[in-house]
């Protein structure tokens, strides 16, 4: 299911140099392995800072069946070396997304992976059904969302629920399905195994770590929602560990993310076993991060004699 392209002269978009950055996951070939993490990319806004064609794929912010307002503000707090967010998956709903945003995204040669959120299995399925009829290239199912029918426990925090939701969306989808896992679990490898068993075409990880910050002078949590998702450089060691564990637990492709700020960070994820990487928080604090990181990845490969991504993935001793 994963196939890296061995170096070929004048390959893809990197004809100018000797490198092949292409990667194929679930039958879809990305020009390069750099993608945007869900919720940290907005086509018009991010596109003001770089050419979207430079990306292997964009992963959209989460879309749900109905429009969601998300949480009241404050939604953002700073943490040491990272940030907390409690945006709460604000989005215009899948219909508006398909109508207003998808066509623009599809005007680039970059692949489009649509991230899907839901509060019930049914909501996920109906959104997936609608997206199946579009020209989206792939879907990423964010199962960190709380299951409101099960007392708000996150779909991705429970093996049975994670399996169930995977099976359900796979039955409906005509698109390859990536399951995006939450790191707030005891055994990430177990969750990965069950979603693979239920037919997932790939796994993205990690979503944010659940955290909290208290303003000791105002005497209240900084975020309206009290808790929020920790992201940024601080989560990288946890993310690398989980990518490493999942890579050794399943055969399907892995999208690795969590705190990637530089090309070297990206390489660390490839060595841990990622096939593709996503840039999240880095793009918030440096709008050009995705293209910078891609350039730094290329530089690393040139300086260290790697010709394609598979060589990096095979490098770990």
């Amino acid at each position: 299911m994963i196939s890296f392209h061995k170096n070929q002269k004048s390959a893809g978009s990197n004809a100018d140099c000797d490198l092949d950055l292409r990667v194929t996951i679930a039958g879809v070939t990305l020009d390069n392995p750099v993608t945007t993490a869900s919720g940290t990319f907005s086509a018009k806004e991010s596109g003001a800072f770089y050419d979207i064609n430079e990306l292997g794929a964009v992963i959209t912010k989460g879309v749900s069946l109905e429009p969601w307002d998300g949480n009241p503000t404050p939604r953002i707090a700073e943490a040491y070396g990272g940030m907390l967010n409690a945006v709460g998956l604000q989005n215009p709903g899948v219909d508006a997304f398909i109508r207003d945003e998808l066509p623009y995204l599809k005007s680039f040669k970059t692949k489009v992976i649509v991230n899907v959120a839901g509060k019930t299995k049914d909501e996920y399925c109906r959104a997936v059904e609608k997206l199946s009829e579009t020209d989206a290239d792939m879907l990423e199912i964010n199962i960190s969302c709380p299951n409101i029918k099960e007392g708000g426990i996150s779909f991705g925090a429970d093996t049975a629920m994670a399996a169930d939701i995977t099976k359900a969306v796979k039955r409906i989808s005509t698109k390859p399905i990536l399951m995006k896992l939450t790191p707030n679990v005891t055994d990430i490898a177990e969750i990965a195994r069950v979603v693979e068993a239920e037919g997932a075409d790939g796994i993205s990880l990690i979503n944010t770590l659940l955290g909290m910050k208290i303003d000791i002078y105002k005497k209240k949590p900084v975020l309206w929602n009290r808790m929020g998702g920790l992201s940024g450089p601080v989560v990288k060691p946890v993310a690398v560990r989980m990518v490493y564990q999942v890579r050794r637990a399943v055969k399907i492709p892995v999208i690795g993310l969590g705190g990637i700020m530089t090309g070297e960070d990206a390489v660390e994820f490839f060595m841990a076993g990622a096939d593709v990487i996503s840039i999240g928080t880095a793009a918030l604090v440096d709008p050009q991060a995705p293209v910078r990181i891609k350039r730094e990845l290329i530089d690393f490969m040139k300086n260290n004699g790697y010709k394609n991504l598979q060589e990096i993935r095979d490098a770990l001793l």
Partner: protein
Amino acid sequence: MTGVAPGILESKILGNEQIAREIYRMTLEYEGGENEIKPGQFVNLYLNDKSMILPRPVSICKVENNRLTLVYRVVGKGTEALSSYAPGDSIRVSTPLGNGYDVTDIARRLGTECTKTIVLAAGGLGVPPMIELAKSLRKAIAGTTDIPHAADSVNEAAPFLTVDMAAANKKLIAVIGFQDEVFLSEELEQYCDSVLVATDNGSRGFHGNVLELIKTAGDPGDYYLACGPKPMLKAVADYCVEKDIPIQVSLEERMGCGYGACVGCTCKIKEENDTEVPFKLKKVCKDGPVFRGNEVVWDD
């Protein structure tokens, strides 16, 4: 910004001096110039301390000859760090962000007889963006009227400064409030016909808040432009809405990216002509920070 692509620039700090208690003025060498910014826009400042990864949004106070002036208050670790940067140091600063005040709308109205007096209403750290705004408005007034210069003394470098406002029957008034210490009032006087000062503790000027001072001053103004703490903005907006005076307000919210990617900084906007939904969620950083005061849904 002509020639400067959106992004982050390495900028040299030219000055960073304290101008009041906890208040600092930073001047930066800045590519691009006054023509490329809109008053009310802000920049993201990036800190050297790698434990603080989020940018700090700070309003543009003034741009002149490739010099960007920012005025900020030390309120936390980030601004404390900022205050320690020295002239000569370099700092990472974004190209201008957000939509500033809609000066075109005002210019259009200034062309008519109905709009005579413009009021800048600002409180505390809402005052700095008023400098560039007042300058722009002064220019707009000079551009929309065809009138002599006061006492025939044209300021060649900045002719808009010597336009005879009285002859044009136009007025630019600033009403600015502070807790205690006053800053930037002299700067504003350069561009405004009058600057009225209020302090919460009465230590200088009017004893009371900005809205009280506006009322005391006889409710001047055909157009309001406001910036400051939320309660003040809400009060002034309510006042204007009631009197049916147009008002633009600049909002503030905790930000992740500052450029519209993270959806961290929403506010509720009820567009005048939109009857379908109670409000829409807009991004303060990208759709604002300036909104029509009558369209803002003020909750809490």
